[in-house]
């Protein structure tokens, strides 16, 4: 019975998806004449009477649609979250996968051919995940444990892992693997191993168009997959897939309803927001700074340094963005950079010199004379961008320049050939770099990076405030070369406030969120119309960050696909 219902839904939704493909092609081709053939979509009724979605009437008519997407393999983070959410196993099983590649600051597997080692890891992790899964409770298969139950499991688990309904043929094939097992559990495990190694899980296979430059409207299931990857970094849940089945993801309004649900007090949304910021700021480690999980500080210089404090340092930025992006706090980009509060544990509060009311993570308001602002002056961030004792002005400068302003650090003359001067209590860090830094770092580095990094000079290697360094008052004056931050900045708070007002930072953050959302680069030409509208709405909402996320999610960027 159940299978029958499901088949009908599939036919229905496929028919609708096909209708949109045709409509998109007709409307868009009428405007610009560059849309190719829509390809061999599944046959279905054309419902020309349905009005095209709103996005067809906006940017498509200006000649812009969306930039191209390339084939994407899910990241280890998505894999782990998916198997945790769908199968109830530990997400850490996915850490045995081979390392992800990067797109800008974010993990994304969009370029390389898989290697033998990759394939071995897909096999090994699939087997360990399947072995860890309680398959009987998963599909309520305690009794009877028979093929009908295995079929139900295949449909329900498969639907989420593959982000769409399974066809009868696909299900039959999985059941033939089930039949190889000596028991229900073994047979179900074989099915699951196949599902997890399948390209339907490992790759995001979306749309029907295959000709370069072709643009299509994605069907509801492809939209659901993109939304879940963006907002949760995980697999869609049944509710989202139901919405796709019912055709509720075929309009911006329908998508918006689901997006709002997905962003409402959901740990999966919080984990995506945390991941965005940790990757954006390089807190998992980069080529030139350690991971926030592997910090080492000189405990003879910092008596408070220990493993417990290291763990608390990680919690602060996570808690801060979790609250900032919640429905209640609904923070803005300005708040991200200049908030006069944080969420901290007692150990971190002590680093700020703040009283802590008790235990755990608590919201702490900054007194007016506390010279800290937002994310960039949090001790954990400054400690990653800090040495065992001393500050790391070059790395801090690169952080702001490359990741918040989207200015490239590329030319050979500005590479990070830094022979770091050792800690010397008799000379200030700034003087060390002014006197020795340019010789090893190069003139470009000196001119474009140091002036940003020097603005953080009031913070040492652990992010503690200091008035003096090397026996003299700290000089934290700086500037932001090549940017719209004009003139000098006086210290980190002034820098943060300037960055919060910078249009370049605004545009960069929009670009970073789109990169994170779609795991592709922003196309300066083709995405221009949509990006301009996003900008208008982001500014219209006074830089509200949830608005930015929502507007990306409901835009053509998610609903349309251009073939590379």
């Amino acid at each position, binding site marked *: 019975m159940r299978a029958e219902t499901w088949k009908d839904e599939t036919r229905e939704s496929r028919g609708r998806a096909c209708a949109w493909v045709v409509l998109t092609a007709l409307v868009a081709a009428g405007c610009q004449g560059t849309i190719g053939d829509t390809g061999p979509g599944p046959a279905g009724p054309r419902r020309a009477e349905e009005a095209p979605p709103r996005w067809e009437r906006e940017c498509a008519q200006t000649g812009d649609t969306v930039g191209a997407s390339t084939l994407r393999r899910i990241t280890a983070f998505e894999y782990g979250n998916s198997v945790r959410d769908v199968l109830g196993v530990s997400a850490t099983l996915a850490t045995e996968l081979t390392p992800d590649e990067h797109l800008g600051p974010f993990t994304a597997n969009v370029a390389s051919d898989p290697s033998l080692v*990759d394939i071995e890891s897909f096999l090994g992790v699939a087997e360990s995940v399947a072995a860890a899964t309680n398959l009987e409770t998963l599909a309520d298969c305690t009794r009877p444990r028979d093929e009908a139950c295995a079929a139900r499991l295949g449909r329900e688990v498969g639907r989420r892992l593959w982000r769409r309904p399974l066809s009868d043929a696909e299900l039959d094939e*999985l059941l033939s*693997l089930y039949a*190889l097992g000596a028991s229900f559990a073994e047979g179900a495990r074989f099915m699951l191993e196949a599902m997890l190694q399948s390209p339907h899980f490992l790759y995001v296979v979306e749309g029907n168009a295959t000709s370069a430059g072709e643009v299509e409207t994605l069907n509801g299931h492809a939209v659901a997959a993109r939304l879940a990857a963006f907002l949760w970094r995980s697999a869609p849940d049944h509710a989202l897939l139901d919405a796709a089945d019912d055709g509720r993801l075929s309009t911006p309004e329908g998508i918006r309803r689901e997006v709002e649900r997905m962003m409402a007090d959901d740990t999966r949304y919080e984990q995506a927001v945390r991941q965005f910021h940790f990757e954006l700021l390089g807190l998992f480690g980069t080529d030139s700074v*350690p991971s926030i999980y*592997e910090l080492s500080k000189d405990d003879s210089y910092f008596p408070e340094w220990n493993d417990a404090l290291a763990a608390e340092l990680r919690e602060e930025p996570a808690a801060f963005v979790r609250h900032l992006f919640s429905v209640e706090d609904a923070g803005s980009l300005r708040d991200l950079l200049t908030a006069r509060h944080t969420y901290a544990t007692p150990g971190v509060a002590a680093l700020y010199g703040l009283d802590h009311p008790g235990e755990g993570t608590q919201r702490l308001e900054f007194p007016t004379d506390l010279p800290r602002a937002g994310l960039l002056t949090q001790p954990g961030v400054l400690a990653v961008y800090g040495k065992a004792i001393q500050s790391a002005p070059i790395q801090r400068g690169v952080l702001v320049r490359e990741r918040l302003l989207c200015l490239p650090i590329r030319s050979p003359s500005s*590479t*990070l050939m830094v022979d770091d001067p*050792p800690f010397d209590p008799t000379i200030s860090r700034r003087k060390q770099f002014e006197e020795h830094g340019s010789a090893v770092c190069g003139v470009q580095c000196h001119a474009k990076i140091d002036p940003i990094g020097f603005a953080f000079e009031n913070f040492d290697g652990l992010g503690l405030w200091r008035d003096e360094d090397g026996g003299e008052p700290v000089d934290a004056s700086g500037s932001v070369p090549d940017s719209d931050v004009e003139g000098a900045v006086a210290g980190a708070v002034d820098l943060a406030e300037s960055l919060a007002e910078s249009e370049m930072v605004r545009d960069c953050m929009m670009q970073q969120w789109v990169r994170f959302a779609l795991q592709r680069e922003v196309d300066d030409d083709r995405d221009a119309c949509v990006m301009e509208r996003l900008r208008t709405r982001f500014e219209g909402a006074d830089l509200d960050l949830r608005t930015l996320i929502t507007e990306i999610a409901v835009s053509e960027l998610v609903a349309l696909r251009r073939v590379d």
Partner: protein
Amino acid sequence: MTTHKTSRRSFLSALGLGAAGSLLAPWVPMLESEAHAQGTIPKRLVLFVTGNGNLRNTWVPDAGRVLGPSMAPLARHESRLVVCAEGIEQRVFRSGGEGRDHVRSHPQLLTARRIGEDRATAATGISIDQHVAATLGPDRPFPVLSLGAGNTATYSFTGPNAPYAAVNNPQTVLDRVFAGVGGATPDARDVARQRILETVHGHLGAVRPRIAPADRHRIDAHVERLEDVRRRLATASSLVCERPDLTVPSRSWASAEGHRDAPDLQARLLRAALGCDLTRVGMVTLGNSGNVGLQYSWLGTNRDAHDVAHAARGGRGETEAMEIQTRIDEWHAERFAVLLDQLEDTPERDGSSVLDHSLVVWMSPLAQGNHSVSDMPFVLAGGLVRGGRAVRVHDRTHNDFLVSLCSLLGMPDRSFGEAEFCSGPIEELLS
């Protein structure tokens, strides 16, 4: 950790050829590969890569000596070593482009090519290990077996922008590399695994037409590699070769503890794989090129190894940092010595050892932690070199060094990597 040493005598004992049985033999290589069947013993290449180079003050041998002070742990292998401490420059690194930043230099070490403009960590060509594997043992289950210890920098590439990652977890190596090896007959599990892989293969075929043509090479590569894995598993049970008798402790292999304990375990796994002829090219790679974020706490320091190398300033820096760097260099030398022990204790059928038929190389993507790339530190070991000497060469490139490895393995290559930096094998290493 304590080295699990198995002498040749105890190995023969385990085979019943000695006076008494022994519990020490961790594996029994009796694989009848084509080379073995023909009676020839295959040549092998083993690369051992550590980050950040060495502190030259304590690493470079004095005149008339083979080893520098921090290489003391290698004394037991001195007669089999060629130490090259001078005259080879990583010129591709010097030649500009993205790769000049040391921390992004790792794809250059074994490719000897400039890094791509678009993706700073992408190689633009094949690495020497993969190149050599295509000659030494392309038909082996693992053309290259790349094992890591806290490794976060990929050195091996099968081609442009095609990384071949190291596996850091020895348990994973044990489970995957030796999966099914030595099993009597395929059991139901093996049959099911084959069917599962065939199903996945079918799915790849089904999605391929829906993928944009420009992206289909990724699906094709997936199919090809999947078939490699499937074939390996289908034939694994016919390999007469036992799994290494190794208990891998539970660790976070990404942690400092994992970095500390993995090298010797990986050396034991590699010896077993080489002995079984599962591969002819092996790699053990530690840390990352700049050792960013690594702490060698078991050497009495909690300082970040990257910062230590900087503070040592190529021998002109802090005394404490230079001492720590020397301890790190000694520890790396000891790990290399243990790897050589393992290969030496792995017998071939004719009584010689795997080491006798191997070219083993210790190298680093940097000469020193201060980012210098002239006077790259290289140590060659094994039966394919004339050991017991330190050589000083003049004004050569690491492209030439890599092609010298080909020559030592009997390959005819005259250049490798960027052609402009190639002038042929380095005679001093070959003679």
